[in-house]
């Protein structure tokens, strides 16, 4: 019996000695592991999911070496532990080392990430530790080293931690590719396990982790539930609470009692700029918080962030204002309250943030929802209902990411080179590339060797050399450049910010700084700074006493509403209309609903509301499908396109999670008679493709693709200037590919990403089908309504036109005269 094995007994004795009683899912995981299975452990944080796999590996080791496991050293790498976050690695390593010491197992635990010192790397190369904690990027960096197969000679287990975080992104694809190589090296001897929080598509997550042809994978579910108490902070005077906005500063006085009554509070905001503003405003409102309040977001200096995390552990801080930067990561025991400012836009994210408080198994997680504008309260009610029904979003795996594959092939080319047939075999067994065609594969290889087709005798393309079936990069320069570029997290060019007198503050987007004049003030890391000059890729600043300062708006801050939450939202509007709701949020909003009803209409479940309003800006058309901004963006483009077939017309388009707006300088030809036709699913795909936005969306997607595929040269750290002749923007590259190489696979990928991920074509179709059986209500309010106001003030706009370029320009000139 496995239970009676020597290793099992040793571990049980140790657990009992520490008065730990293993959860059932942990024992299930050990059993499955000892039977040689692979799979996923599904458990919430705070319940010992690390031990569910780590101890299994130890049991197997003790069983295999019952006599000498207490003094056997230099065993080579046994267990590779992939984690998305560097900060996580340190804490897990600490926990593992403690267990190993108590069990008298002389294993080494190593960490490999961007922070690992050169000396440590060299030592690891000589003698790998038995356990290595690593990020997906660093794993690929290992594969980019000469003679890398030697490192993995004894490897038998790979664990991918926080798999739910990785699966929906290109970092997940990096994990898939890394695993495919390790499986290629170790064949059947490799066991692969994932650890994942609950997501809507856990079965698919298993397929992605093990590949579509796996036959020995299983999911071990913890069946433990976390208790979450959600409370909305309701504005005292809902009539005077703003209809639009995204900061929520007006509610700040009502947040203070929560902070005072708790031991430690995490205040989650959705953007970095918002966190900066909240930090400042909290200090102003309650100066006593100085020293006990901290700020944590992705643009703040790494060391400062680590300090904040340590201080959270030690319970020194009263509150931390943060962004998604603290979504993940280790548990901070002192945290007993969480405040969410503004809608989190998804059930899973909300649960995760709520779970950051009350960690002890069985404890209640307290989360306070603080709306940034009135209508957001409906989202709180919807979140509550969605949580009760456990409507948790799925994370869609990325498919056919040619950019990541190109990067990976280059990685293999700069280390030992690769045989195309062998790698083809491996990658076509991954989930991401299971449908790749041979033509596409050949194109990718030729892209690396000859730079695509269209070769003349004048071509000088150089990258990877081909020797029959063998591909290798022999240029040391290119190999070095490639190693610096491994990874799929693409950000805007970031500049370091330092004081004139020295002292590093953080990083900031180049595009923001380029709009400032010397002498202007801005806020970073909670400080007011005066911009002085840019030198060697560094922004030099001094302290500013200016009362007014600009808060940088960072890209990527806007998260769209998930479809689960959208559905709940429509339900809640329905309930509000019935007047029978018992949600405190909906009751509080009654005055606003009444105003909406008086000015226009509140749509019922089977209705689509359209508002036509004229202002000095022009003719507005507002449509409210409540499907989230991504779907609205596409629907708006589609509707604009179809309207533009009726007559030459130009629209500017805006949207939020509730609806979208078309704005034009001429009356918009939408009527009750043609409305149904304008929202039909006829010719949907073709008309989507012709709508101008597809190109613009693809252009935006192309930025990341170009960087990942190595088309954009970001320069060497600290050596910016030397390579300026190789600088070009992604937008410019997109143009030249579109004009000169339209068959390019990376271009195709950009359009695919725009269509299938961003446009969510399937969801759009469902929405249109819903509208087809709905009643369309068109109102013509005399002034802006509570529904349309937040959309109208949105400044991010797209354009859709059927007028000739020349005509548009002439019109622009006349209106300006």
């Amino acid at each position: 019996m496995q239970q009676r094995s020597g290793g099992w007994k040793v571990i049980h004795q140790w657990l009992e000695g520490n008065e730990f009683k293993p959860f059932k899912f942990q024992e299930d995981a050990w059993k499955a592991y000892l039977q040689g299975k692979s799979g996923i452990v599904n458990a919430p944080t705070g319940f010992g999911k690390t031990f569910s796999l780590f101890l299994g590996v130890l049991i197997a080791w003790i069983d295999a070496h019952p006599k000498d496991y207490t003094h056997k050293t230099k065993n080579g790498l046994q267990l590779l532990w992939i984690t998305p976050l560097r900060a996580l690695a340190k804490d897990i390593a600490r926990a593992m080392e403690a267990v190993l010491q108590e069990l008298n197992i002389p294993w080494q635990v190593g960490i490999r990430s961007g922070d690992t010192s050169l000396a440590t790397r060299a030592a690891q190369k000589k003698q790998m530790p038995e356990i290595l904690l690593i990020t997906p990027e660093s794993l690929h960096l290992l594969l980019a080293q000469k003679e890398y197969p030697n490192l993995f000679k004894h490897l038998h287990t790979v664990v991918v931690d926080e798999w739910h975080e990785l699966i929906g992104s290109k970092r997940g694809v990096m994990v898939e590719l890394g695993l495919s190589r390790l499986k290629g090296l170790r064949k059947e001897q490799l066991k692969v396990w994932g650890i994942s929080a609950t997501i809507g598509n856990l079965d698919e997550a298993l397929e992605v982790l093990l590949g579509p042809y796996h036959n020995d994978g299983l999911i071990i579910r913890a069946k433990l539930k976390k208790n979450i108490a959600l409370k909305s902070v309701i504005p005292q005077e809902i009539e005077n609470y703003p209809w639009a906005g995204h900061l929520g500063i007006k509610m700040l006085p009502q947040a203070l009692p929560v902070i005072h009554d708790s031991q430690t509070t995490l205040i989650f905001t959705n953007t970095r700029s918002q966190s900066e503003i909240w930090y400042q405003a909290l200090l102003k409102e309650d100066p006593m918080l100085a020293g006990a309040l901290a700020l944590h977001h992705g643009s703040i200096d790494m060391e400062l962030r680590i300090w904040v995390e340590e201080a959270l552990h030690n319970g020194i801080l009263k509150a931390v204002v943060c962004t998604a930067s603290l979504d993940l990561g280790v548990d901070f025991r002192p945290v007993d309250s969480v405040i969410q400012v503004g809608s989190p836009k998804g059930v899973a994210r909300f649960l995760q943030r709520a779970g950051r408080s009350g960690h002890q198994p069985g404890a209640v997680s307290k989360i306070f929802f603080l709306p940034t504008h009135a209508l957001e309260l409906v989202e709180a009610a919807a979140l509550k209902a969605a949580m009760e029904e456990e409507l948790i979003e799925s994370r869609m795996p990325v498919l056919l990411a040619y950019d990541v594959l190109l990067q990976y092939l280059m990685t293999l080319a700069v280390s030992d080179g690769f045989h195309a047939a062998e790698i083809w075999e491996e990658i076509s067994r991954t989930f991401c590339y299971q449908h790749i065609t041979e033509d596409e594969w050949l194109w990718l290889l030729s892209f690396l060797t000859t730079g695509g087709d269209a070769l003349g005798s004048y071509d000088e393309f150089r990258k990877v050399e081909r020797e029959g079936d063998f591909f290798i990069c022999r240029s040391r320069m290119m190999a070095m450049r490639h190693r610096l570029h491994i990874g799929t997290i693409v950000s805007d060019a970031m500049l370091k910010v330092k004081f004139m007198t020295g002292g590093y503050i953080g990083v900031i987007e180049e595009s923001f700084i380029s709009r400032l004049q010397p002498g202007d003030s801005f806020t970073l890391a909670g400080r007011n700074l005066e911009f002085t000059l840019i030198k060697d890729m560094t922004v030099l600043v001094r302290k500013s006493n200016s009362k007014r300062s600009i808060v940088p708006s960072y890209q990527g801050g806007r998260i769209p509403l998930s479809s689960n939450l959208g559905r709940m939202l429509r339900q809640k509007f329905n309930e509000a209309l019935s007047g029978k709701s018992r949600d405190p949020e909906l009751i509080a909003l009654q005055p606003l609903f009444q105003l909406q009803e008086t000015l226009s209409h509140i749509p019922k479940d089977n209705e689509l509301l359209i508002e036509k309003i004229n202002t000095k800006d022009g003719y507005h058309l507002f449509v409210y499908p409540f499907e989230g901004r991504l779907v609205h963006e596409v629907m708006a483009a589609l509707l604009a396109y179809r309207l533009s077939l009726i007559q030459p017309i130009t629209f500017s388009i805006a949207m939020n999670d509730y609806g979208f707006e078309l704005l034009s300088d001429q009356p918009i030809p939408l009527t009750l008679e043609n409305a149904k036709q304008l929202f039909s699913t006829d010719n949907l795909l073709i008309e989507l493709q012709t709508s101008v936005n597809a190109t613009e969306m693809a252009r935006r997607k192309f930025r990341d693709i170009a960087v990942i595929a190595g088309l954009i040269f970001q320069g060497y750290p600290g050596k910016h200037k030397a390579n300026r002749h190789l600088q070009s923007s992604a937008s410019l590259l997109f143009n030249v590919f579109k004009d000169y190489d339209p068959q390019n696979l990376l271009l195709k990928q950009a359009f695919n990403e725009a269509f299938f991920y961003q446009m969510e074509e399937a969801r759009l179709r469902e929405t249109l089908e819903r509208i087809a059986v709905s009643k369309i209500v068109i109102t013509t309010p005399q002034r802006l309504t509570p529904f349309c106001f937040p959309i109208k003030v949105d400044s991010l706009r797209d354009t859709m036109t059927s007028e000739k370029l020349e005509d548009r320009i002439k019109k622009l000139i006349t209106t300006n005269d």
Partner: protein
Amino acid sequence: MDSVVGEIFHFQQQHWHLLPQRAIFWEEEKTLIVSDMHLGKATHFRKAGIAVPAGIEQEDLFRLQQLITRYLPQRIIIVGDMFHSTENNDVQYFRVWRQQFANISINLVKGNHDIMPDAVYEQLQIQVNTTLTISGIHFIHEPCDDHNGFQYTFSGHFHPAFVMQGAGKQRLRLPCFYFGPHCGILPAFGHFTGSATLDPAAHDPVFVIAGKSIIRAQ
């Protein structure tokens, strides 16, 4: 070619044909003026393993060739940044291309990208100068802000684009020709070049390139 329409701008007592191919034909001097061609840029990238499409410079030169056969200039002035970087095979391509028009003189006003040895330009029959003045009209790569003593100055370097805004929050950004009080700026001729947004004074003439035609924007 015939569907492409230029705009004849009478300015400084001269006739300037502003062409949507991103060039100016100076009627009185029978001179074609272009700027910022950045020949060899794509090849420079490809040599470094960055697979931008090949053949961009061939197309750029074909466009120049079409302009030459149409306007039959005696001289071509390039207001800087003719080649993008160090010597590569595109220089050889240009040498062959150049032989078709051996009788046309080419004047290059040196830009910050024009870094090849003098001998290379000599071989290509290109006269290189830091500045050039013809009939009182001055050519220099980087635009000057103040009056420099010449009747008028033409520059490049900036790759100008102009933003137009109007009712319904519409916005368009297009490459342009700009005529300041003392100095005019040409659009970048090369296709593989970006652009920078210009913020001109309200009364300075600006002509935008709208597809196949030129439109005066202000």
